C-alpha cells in the first residue's frame, strides 16, 4: 500500500510562503520565551515556586462557587483547572501571592465551604522559590547543552550549509512549540521542557532523511538545476517523511487522548512537536540550504561577471556551483 505516491509538488518554489509563516511562528515563540524569562507566561510551579493541589470530590463542584469561596479567603489569585472526568479540581497558587501554608488553607476552605461534598487530596506539590530559581538555571544549562550537542553533531555530519539548514529547522521546531504553548496559555513546566528537548532530538530524523536524499541526487544529477534536484529529492522521500512521523504521531496522540491528566499537556507538546518537525523538514530545512547555496552561488557568479563581463539575470537561483 502507498499513501503518497509520486508527488510533484514545488516545495522550493513556495518557500517564500513557508518562510513568512515560519518567521511569524518563530517570532511568537521568541516573544513566548521572553515572557517566560520575565515570569509573565503561565509558568508551572516547579519554575515559579508555589503550591498546587489536586482534589477529587464525590460530587460535582461549581467553578463559580469555588472561585468565590477562594476569593473570600485571600486566595483570589489561585488559578483553577477543572478536570472533567471524576469531579477533579486543580488549584494552583504562586508563591509570591500567598504566604503561609497554602495547601492547608485551601483544604480548610473546601472542608468548611463544601461540607456535604467530601474530597480526597490526589496530589499536592509545594515548591520553594529557591528550588524554582535553581531549576530555571539548570534547565537553561540543559537546553543550551543539548542544542550545542545537536549542533556539534550536525556540524560534524554535514557540511556548513546543510548544518545551518538542519540547525535552523531544529530551532524552528523548538520555537514553534513555545509559540503554541504561549498562544494557548498552556503551562510551561519541566515536563514541557522535557518534551521540547525530546522533539529537538527527534526533529532531525526527518530532516536527515531529506538531506541524505538531496546529497545522493546531487551527486547523480550533475546537470540538473539545484532547485530541481531539491524538489525532486523532497518529493521522492515525501512518503517516508510523512510515514515515520505518522507512526510517532500515532503513539503520541494515544498518550494525549488516553494517558490521563498528569501527562496531558506533555503529550500535547509531543504531538505539536512531531507535526512541526515534519513540516520544518520539508518546508524549512531544505529551502534554507538552497538559499544558502544560491547565495554562495551568486557571489561566485558575480566574480565571474567581473571577470568575463557576462551579465546574469535575476532568478538564476537554479545555477549551482558544485563543490569540487
Amino acid at each position, binding site marked *: 500500500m502507498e499513501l503518497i505516491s509520486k508527488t510533484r509538488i514545488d516545495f522550493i518554489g513556495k518557500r517564500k510562503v513557508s518562510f513568512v509563516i515560519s518567521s511569524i511562528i518563530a517570532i511568537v515563540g521568541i516573544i513566548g520565551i521572553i515572557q517566560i524569562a520575565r515570569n509573565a507566561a503561565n509558568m508551572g510551579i516547579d519554575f515559579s515556586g508555589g503550591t498546587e493541589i489536586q482534589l477529587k470530590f464525590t460530587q460535582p463542584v461549581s467553578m463559580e462557587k469555588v472561585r468565590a469561596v477562594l476569593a473570600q479567603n485571600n486566595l483570589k489569585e489561585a488559578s483553577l483547572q477543572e478536570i472533567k472526568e471524576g469531579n477533579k479540581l486543580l488549584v494552583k497558587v504562586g508563591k509570591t501571592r500567598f504566604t503561609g501554608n497554602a495547601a492547608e488553607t485551601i483544604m480548610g476552605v473546601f472542608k468548611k465551604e463544601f461540607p456535604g461534598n467530601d474530597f480526597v487530596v490526589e496530589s499536592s506539590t509545594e515548591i520553594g522559590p529557591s528550588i524554582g530559581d535553581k531549576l530555571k538555571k539548570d534547565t537553561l544549562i540543559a537546553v543550551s547543552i543539548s542544542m550545542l550537542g545537536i549542533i556539534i*553533531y550536525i556540524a560534524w555530519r554535514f557540511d556548513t550549509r546543510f548544518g545551518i539548514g538542519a540547525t535552523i529547522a531544529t530551532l524552528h521546531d523548538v520555537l514553534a512549540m513555545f509559540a503554541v504553548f504561549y498562544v494557548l496559555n498552556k503551562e510551561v513546566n519541566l515536563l514541557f521542557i522535557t518534551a521540547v528537548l525530546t522533539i529537538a532530538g527527534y526533529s532531525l530524523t526527518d530532516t536527515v532523511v531529506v538531506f541524505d536524499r538531496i546529497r545522493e541526487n546531487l551527486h547523480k544529477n550533475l546537470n540538473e538545476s539545484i532547485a530541481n534536484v531539491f524538489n525532486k529529492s523532497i518529493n521522492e522521500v515525501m512518503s517516508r517523511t510523512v510515514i515515520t512521523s505518522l507512526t510517532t504521531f500515532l503513539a503520541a496522540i494515544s498518550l494525549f487522548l488516553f494517558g490521563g491528566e498528569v501527562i496531558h499537556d506533555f503529550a500535547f507538546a509531543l504531538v505539536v512537536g512531531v507535526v512541526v518537525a515534519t513540516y520544518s523538514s520539508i518546508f524549512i530545512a531544505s529551502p534554507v540550504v538552497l538559499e544558502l547555496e544560491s547565495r554562495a552561488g551568486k557571489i561566485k557568479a558575480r566574480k565571474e561577471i567581473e571577470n568575463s563581463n557576462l551579465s546574469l539575470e535575476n532568478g538564476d537561483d537554479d545555477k549551482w556551483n558544485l563543490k569540487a
Partner: protein
Amino acid sequence: MSKGLTWRVSLILLFLLLSFLYLTPTLVGKLPPWWKGVLPKDKIHLGLDLQGGTHLVMEVETQKAVEGTLDLIATDLEDSLTAQNLRFKRIGRTGPDRIQLVLYDKGTAETAEKLVKKKYPEMEILPTVEEGGFVNLQLRMNEKTAQDRKDKAVAQALETIRNRIDQFGVSEPVIAREGLNHIVVQLPGIKDPKRAIELIGRTARLEFKLVDENVTPSTTPLPEDDEILTEKKTDPTTGAVSEIPLVVKKKAMITGDLLTDAQVRIDSQFNQPYVAIEFNSTGAKLFDQVTATNVGKRFAIVLDNNIYSAPVIRERISGGSAQITGSFTEKEASDLAIVLRAGSLPAPVQIIQNVTVGPSLGADSIHKGLLAGLIGVALVVCFMAVYYKLAGLVANLGMVLNIIYLMGALAALGATLTLPGIAAIVLLIGMSVDSNVLIFERIREELRLGKTPKAGLDAGYDKAFLTIMDSHVTTLITAAVLFQFGTGPVKGFAVSLSLGIIINLFTSLLATKVVFDFVLARKHVKSLSI
C-alpha cells in the same frame, strides 16, 4: 542456515531470555520457592508518581549550626572563667562568625587567650582592643572550620532524619544528601504525609530553662540574660488554645543531648499521655544539682523555643528521670518520643519542596499509561500491517522485542519507572517502527530499480543505516542531558528514552533483518511482501 544468521538468532534469543528472567519478579505475583540464588528478585521500581508517596527536599540552615557551635564555645568559656574566679563583663557571639569577650583587665584577657588556644585551637584570636576601660577580645571562626561545621551539620541531620524515619516505620525510604546543604527524602506509600513531615522537619532541641520569677513579661528592657518564651495551653473541655508568655533564663541548664531514652506513658490519674525521659549519668548529675539548688522555682521544659510545661521544682530529683507533660494527644506524644530518642537536628531544616502523590492518582496513572501504551501499540501495529503487509509484521515483531528488551533492561538496571517514563516507552513504539519505515521505503525503492529481493533488502538496510544512526544519536544527546539535569519523573523519562533508543538500534538493524534473511535463506522468494 548461514553462520552469521545462527549467531544473530542466538543473540536475540539470549537477550529475550535475559529480559524475561529479569521481568519474572515483576510479572509473577509470588515467586516460587525454587527461585533463589543468583536469580533476580527485584521488581521494576515504580517512581513516587506511580505508587504514591512523598518526595521532600529539605534545606539545612547550616549557618545556624555554626552559630550554635559559637554559642556553645561562648558558654563554655564563661563557665571556665567563672571556675577560675576570673571576672568578665560579657561573653557572647557577635555576628555570624565571632565571639566577643568583654573583660575588665589585661591579665584576664591573657588567661582567656591561653584558654582559647588550648581548648579551641581552630579559633582565630584577633588583636585585643582596649576601650572605655574594658578589654575587648574577639575570636573568629575561620571559613574552613565553619565549612567543616556546616558539612558535619548536614551529615548529622541526615543521620538523625534517617533514625526518625526508621522509628516512624516507612518501607523502603530514600534519604540522600544532594548538593551542599540539601537532603532529599522519599517516602513511598506513606499514609499520613503531614504527620511524617512534621516529625522529620522538627529541630527537636530540648532544653530545660529556669523561669525568672523576678521579672514579668511586660518588663522593659528585659535583663540581658533573660528571654520571653510562650507556653501553649489547651483547655481540655473547651479546646481553646491560650498562649502564656513566660520569662526564662537564656541559658539552658540541661539539653536534650544528655538523654538516653524517651517513652510514651499514660498518666493513670488524668488518663493523659506524657513522655518519660531518662538522662545519662552526666545529665542525671546535672539534673540532681540544678533541682537541689532551685527548689521552689519553676523549671521550663522547652522544645524548639516553645515551652511544653513549667512545673515547680518541689524537691531535689536524683536518679535521672523526668516527665514531659503538656496537652498533647497520644500520637503527638509518641512522635515527640521518637524525635527525642532520635536526637535533635544540629540546625533547623526548611522544607523547600514537597511533592505528595496520593495512591489513587498513582494507580490511575499506571492504568492510563498502560491503556495509552496498548492503544498506541494497536494503532501502530495495524498501520504497519496494512501499509507494509508481511514486512510490516516483521517491523511489529521488532517493536514488541524492543519493548520486552527495554522492560528487561529497566528491571536489570534497577531503574525507576515514572509516568513520563511510561510516556517515553509509548513514544518509542512510534520511533522504533520509524527505523523500519526508513529501511522498508529504501527497499521498495531498490526493488523498483529492479533488484532481486535479497539485493534490495541488503541495499535497503545498508543505505538506511546512516540516517537511522543520525536520528538516534541526536535523540540520545538530549536524553543524556535530561538524565544529567532532570530529577524524579523527568529522569525516569530520560532513562526509558535512552535505553529504548540504544535497544532500538539493535532491534531495527539486526533483529528484523534476521527474519528477512531467515526467510530468504529457506525459501526461494520471488517478490517481497512490502
